[in-house]
Structures are given as C-alpha cells and as structure tokens.
C-alpha cells in the first residue's frame, strides 16, 4: 500500500509537487495501478534472465574523432536565462541538491 507520505517522498525524488487533493487522488490511482501489476507475482521468474534490449546488439561504438557541434549561441538559444555564455539558474541552497 502506497501512503500519502510515500507519494510525498516520490514526488520529492521526481521534483514534483502536488496539492493535498492531488496527493489523495494520486495515492488512490497509484494503489490501483500497483494492485493491478501485482499479478506479475503469479509468475515464477526465478530462472528468467531480465530482458533489457529486445534486439541482441553489442559493441556499438564510434571512433574517437572530434566533430563540430553547436556554437555557444545555438546552445543557449532556448535558455530561460543566461549571462554572457553561461546558462543561469537560481542559487543552490547549499548541500540540498547534488550527487
């Protein structure tokens, strides 16, 4: 069972926010969907290899060659905010975002 608190936690991870009403609705809908996908547990998959790629391909690589990309102007053309040749974003509250 997903609770409103779980929804709040997931929302934080996904950088989304919801009104109290939306949270209730999402909790309900997520639970319905999760209940539905529970049916997968009817299947014994202990010996089944997970499938990540439907087509069996490997070693698709490129040579280490430099090719021209975009100019800084093109790179910044869709930027909501910029300064000189930088993208501009609001300051980070220290330690709050990061890998």
């Amino acid at each position, binding site marked *: 069972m997903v609770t409103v608190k779980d929804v709040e936690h997931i929302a934080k991870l996904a950088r989304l926010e919801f009104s109290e009403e939306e949270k209730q609705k999402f909790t309900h809908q997520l639970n319905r969907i999760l209940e539905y996908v529970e049916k997968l547990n009817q299947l014994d998959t202990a010996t089944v290899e997970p499938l990540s790629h439907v087509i069996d*391909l490997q070693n698709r690589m490129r040579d*280490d060659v430099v090719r021209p*990309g*975009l100019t800084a102007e093109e*790179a910044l053309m869709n930027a909501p905010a910029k300064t000189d040749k930088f993208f501009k974003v609001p300051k980070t509250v*220290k330690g709050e*975002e*990061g890998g």
Partner: protein
Amino acid sequence: MSQHRPYEPVIGLEVHAQLLTRSKAFCSCSTEFGNDPNSNVCPVCLGLPGVLPVLNARVVEFVIRMGLATHCTIARKSVFARKNYFYPDLPKGYQISQYEDPICTDGFVEIELEDGSKKNIGITRIHMEEDAGKSIHDLDVDTLVDVNRCGVPLIEIVSKPDLRSPHEAYQYLSAMKQIVTYLGICDGNMEEGSLRCDANVSVRPVGSVTLGTKTELKNLNSFRFVEKALQYEINRQIALLESGGQVVQETLLWNPDQGVAIPMRSKEEAHDYRYFPEPDLVPVLVPEEQIESVRKTLPEFPMARRDRYIAEYSLPKYDADILTESRDLAEYFEATVRALKRRNPETAKMASNWTMTDVLRVVRERHIEIRDFPIQPERLAGMIDLIADGTISSKIAKDLFEEMLASGDHPGIIVKAKGLVQVSDEGAIERAVAEVLEKNPEQVLKYKSGKHQVFGYFVGETMKIMKGKANPKLVNDILKKKLES
C-alpha cells in the same frame, strides 16, 4: 601520537581519472579545456530532447588498459546504467555510468610502505562514466552553468578498505597517478581535476575485525592535503569514540583553506539514485583477443622498471626512483643509454646524472614536458660518448650542453665548429708546462720547499695557455712529473 595506539584507521579510496581521449564519451565534442563556456557542446552533451549517446571506443580501450595494469578481471560483458539525480550541471537529469556490471573487477595495486616493504591494495571495481559540467556558485543570487566538461570520459577506481594510514592512502594515490600517466590514459593532474579522490574512512580498535561506522570524505583533490584531511577525520572519529560518542554515517566535504571537514547537509532521498540499465546503449563485449592485444601494448611499470635499472645498469636506488617517476623521463633515460657507444655502469651513471640534473633542471625552468625537451636522447648519448672517450672534458661538456640546447646541433658538429676538442697532445702540454715553470721560478721554489698549494696556480696558468682545452688529467700528470723531477 600515543592516544591513537588503540585505534587503527580503515580507509578506502574512490579515484576518478579523466581520460585523455580527443572526443567525449558519448558524443563527438572536443574534450579540450580552457575554451569559452558552452562552446564544446552539441545536442547530445547538452541533453537536448531526442538525442542519443554513442560510446567512444577509446574509452573502452583505456579502461581495459587500466584494468590489466591493476590485475583486474575484465568482464566479457558489461553494461551501462543511468544514475538519476537532479543537478544544474547534469543536463539529462542522469549520469551515464556503470552499476551492476562494471567492466573491471577484483584487482590490486602494489604500494611501498615507509619501511620499504610492499603491500597490495585491493581494487573492488573500475567502471566507465561521464563527467558533469561546471557550476559556478560564487555569485550571490545565481549559479552559472558551463556544459563544456559534460560527457568527458572518466573512470572510477574503487579500492577495497585496505589502507591503514593516511600515508598508505597517499602512496596508493601516487601509485594511481603513476599508473594512469604511464598508461597514457590520464594526465594525472590532481590540482586541475584530472584526478579526483574521495575517501571512505572509519576507525576501529586495533585487533578488531569488524568495521566501524564510516564517513565519506569528499574533495581530497590535492596531493598536498590528502594525508592532512584523512588524519583530521581519523582524529575526529577517535576523539568522538573516546569521549563516548558515536560516529555518524555522513558525507563530509574537506575544506582545504580552513583545514576542516564540513558535513554536507543531505536529504535522505538525495542518495536514491534509481539506477537502471541504460536503454540507449548496448552491452560492451570484450573478447579474449582484444584483452590480449591491449595487454601487448602495456608499458613496463615503475616498480619493475626501477628494479631493472638497479640490476641492469647498477644504478643506485635513489637514481632509479627518480628516473622511473614518470614514464616520459624513464623513456628518455633509456633511449639515452641505448644510444651510447660504450654501455657500462660508468656511462649509464653518467646518463643518469645528466638526465636527473641538467635535463630535469631545464625542463623545470622552461615549464616544458620531457617529450618537448630540445636535446634528443641520441644527441645526449653522443655527448656522453665524447666525455667517455676523452674527446671533451666534463667541464667543456657543460658548455657543450648549453650549445646543444641553443642550436639543437649534433654534439660532434658543435665540438668541431667551436674547437672544443680536448687537447691530449703530450708534446703541446709539455711545452706549455715548461713555459709556465720558466716564467714562475719563485713559485717553483715554493712548491719544492713543500708548499704544494701553489700546484693549482700552475694548472690554471697552463690551462690559460692551452685556452682551457687541455686534458686536465694530462696537465696534472705532466706538471707533477716536471715539478718532482
């Protein structure tokens, strides 16, 4: 530090090395530094909607080199994964990395301890990943983002918690630097961020086999303060335990200016990276033949090379250590020795002396790389040959060296053109000596009365007449013979 006796530190390092590829890991943008912000970018590394990554083959080659150099098992099949988190310098909202199936596992690196003994430090894994961009935070209201560095290839080398002191950690880090630079896969420059280091640190009572609670110490990005930072954290943890407190598992950021480690405020979800296999990239398969062909290109490593110098050239350990510090320097020295006409411990030592002192001095003065040093090893060897066969004196060789630096000419040509050839014609020296003695009868008397210190004066005067080119040994011999006859 007696209070530390009951505790021993347990340290594991995570080292990131930036690979020296021409283009980025997953797109064809240049990896060059110092360009204008957001100029080495394309739709792929900008993370624009609709783009796809394509792996740079050289990244795989480089990481296999590293894996083999550190005795790792190279995975026949490895896959990429997405590490999901939000940060302004991470344009896609995830970093392409490896998680469940890294390309290298289970290796080790040999380090030398203070007492000269050797110790193997285990390596858990080495994996490929992409670098993030750069955020500039030093403004009050805004953060500025430059995407140039996004997608530059990195390898992350994760050690086992085998390090038992800050000094061992330093030695391990030095070994890492030496290996990556020897392999030519990274320039090893910590100060410029090509080599970065985070540490996992815990302490436990000596004799205990269980691990204490660890903290993660980030930003140990200089050889200058790695030991200091680790010692700080070890002391902090011991002090905590001794005062009855407990170590809290947390991430600390080393502040080199203040000499303290500051806890990073982190929310619990900041660490839920939601790794899953990267669907846009296919598995990397490394066949046995590829591993073998890479193995053939591996250089001889510093410790092996050093031991060989001692055995083969009878060099002192001191010389061998310095010469093998970098691959370029070792190769310069070896090329010099190979080019010598007469190769023996004496000439090898001469080659060592010239390389360690004069060559390195010029390299430092001019801030150049060994490979850009103007005198080719063959020319330096030619000069040493001239000293060894008595054509020139060591003193003249110093001048010759400067001439070679300036003109780049062959030593033989310079010696001829400038008339630097040493005069070993005994008749000529005898004539000069006779002239000097004849002109200085008083000094001769002094010498004969036992005041041997005037001998130097006679040598100087003789050399003056010979314009400095006389073979000094012959001058000495002839003077002695004449004065004592």
